[in-house]
Structure formats: structure tokens, C-alpha cells
């Protein structure tokens, strides 16, 4: 089996198709008003919470580690989840 012959089997896979109303639905969604953004008061509240939490956790090294861990999860959610699954998989298999 050469690579070209093997790859030609991909042509048998079903191909995606657009629904009949794709263009109409997309145009309608584009015209609908954008979702409301977070109110300014709520933004200020979360900012204050973040600053307070930062002040509480950063004096200790464990707090700094917690912040770094949180930033890592936010920045690379898929990679972290994959690593966690790999780590947990042997435990779950027991």
C-alpha cells in the first residue's frame, strides 16, 4: 500500500455541506445587535476583587504559585487538560 493509494481512501469520507439557509441565517445574525458587554460597574467590581485577591496571595510563595498555575490554565487550557488527563488516566484505569 503506497501513501498515495492509502490517502485516496479519504475521498470516500462524507464531506461537509452547508445548510440551505446558511447565507440567510448568517446575514441575519450579522445584522442583529452585538451581545451586551459587561456593565462598567461590574467590570470595576471584578477589577477590585482581582486586586484584593492579588494583594492577599502574592506575599506568600504558595500564593504566587497559585497565580502562575491559574495563568497557565487560562493561557493553555487544552494543553493543561491533556496533561491532566494523561496524569490521571492510570489512576482512573485502576
Amino acid at each position, binding site marked *: 500500500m503506497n501513501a498515495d493509494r492509502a490517502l485516496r481512501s479519504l475521498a470516500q469520507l462524507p464531506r461537509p455541506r452547508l445548510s440551505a439557509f446558511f447565507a440567510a441565517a448568517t446575514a441575519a445574525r450579522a445584522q442583529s445587535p452585538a451581545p451586551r458587554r459587561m456593565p462598567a460597574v461590574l467590570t470595576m467590581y471584578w477589577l477590585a476583587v482581582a486586586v484584593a485577591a492579588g494583594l492577599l496571595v502574592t506575599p506568600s510563595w504558595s500564593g504566587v504559585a497559585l497565580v502562575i498555575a491559574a495563568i497557565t490554565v487560562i493561557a493553555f487550557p*487544552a494543553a493543561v487538560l491533556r496533561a491532566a488527563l494523561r496524569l490521571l488516566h492510570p489512576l482512573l484505569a485502576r
Partner: protein
Amino acid sequence: MTDEELVARYVAARDPADFRALVERNAPLVLRLVASILGPFRDADAEETAQDVFLRAHGKLGQFRGDSKFATWLYRLAYNVAANRARLARFRLPHVAVEALRAVAGDESPHEDAVASERAAVVAAAVESLPDLYRTTIYLHYWLETPIEEIASLIGAPPNTVKSYLFRARQRIARILAEKGLTS
């Protein structure tokens, strides 16, 4: 009327029919590009991502200066949106493609079916292990049977570069097949 003229008219007058016309003209190729990045058996995801591409394009139409063709600008946006989606959503486990390829293995004898399934699993894993651009090119060429010129326009590379991607991707796949003892 060209896409660029349609964009200019839409930006000026905001007639929804103009935007709809842009979607109708470009949606099939955007879907094809998005599907080639997300991979087979993600039809709903591909359509949703294609819609997301047009909605983002709608929000950025004012920034389109016409330095390049509208299609080129749109495909670049589509590639980025779909690649981000694939990166977040995919765990690169080939089991979906394997099951699917098994389903299309054919009506052979049980022994031949088992061999075909094994081969399908190896081919699927080999395609999934390719770098993003090679995998996209392979899917566009072999799965979606897109002409080389069209692939070139979708990924923004000259046709000779596309041929070179295909050549190198085939080499890698051949190597994997050889390692698994599946060459004849």
C-alpha cells in the same frame, strides 16, 4: 460586480442583501477550508466555524482596505479562526477518523476487513500526526478533492508550494506506513 465592489457598497449603504450575497459567493470555499482544518466528521462544528468567520469578517469589513483580494483576506481570517478552534477543541486523538475510515473500509471478508481497519487506523493516525499546513493540504486534496490552484488560493501559497507540501506529506505518511509494515 466583484467582491471588492460589493464590500465597498455594503460598507457605504449597509444593505443586508449585499452582505448575504458576499456570504453566498464565498461560503462554499470557506467551509471547505475550515473543514480541512477541523478534519472529517465535524460537520456541525465546521458550519458553525464558517458562520463565525463571516460574523468576524462582518465586524472587520470597515478595516478591509482592498490591498488584496477580498477572498484572500477572508481565507486568511478563516484559517486563523479555524486553527484557533481546532487548537482549543481537538485533542488530536485519531479515534474518530479511525472509526470513520473503518466504516468505509468496504464489504470484504472478516479477515480483509480487519486488515483494512488496521490500515485505516494507521492512515488516520499518520494524517493526524502531520504538521497543520500539511494536514490541511492533504485533506483539501484527498478528502475534499480540491484542485491545486484552488488549494493555493485557500492557503495563500503558490501552486508549486502546495505540490511540495503534498509531496512532503506523502513522504512522511509513506515512512509511517513503512514503519508499520503496511507498504507493498
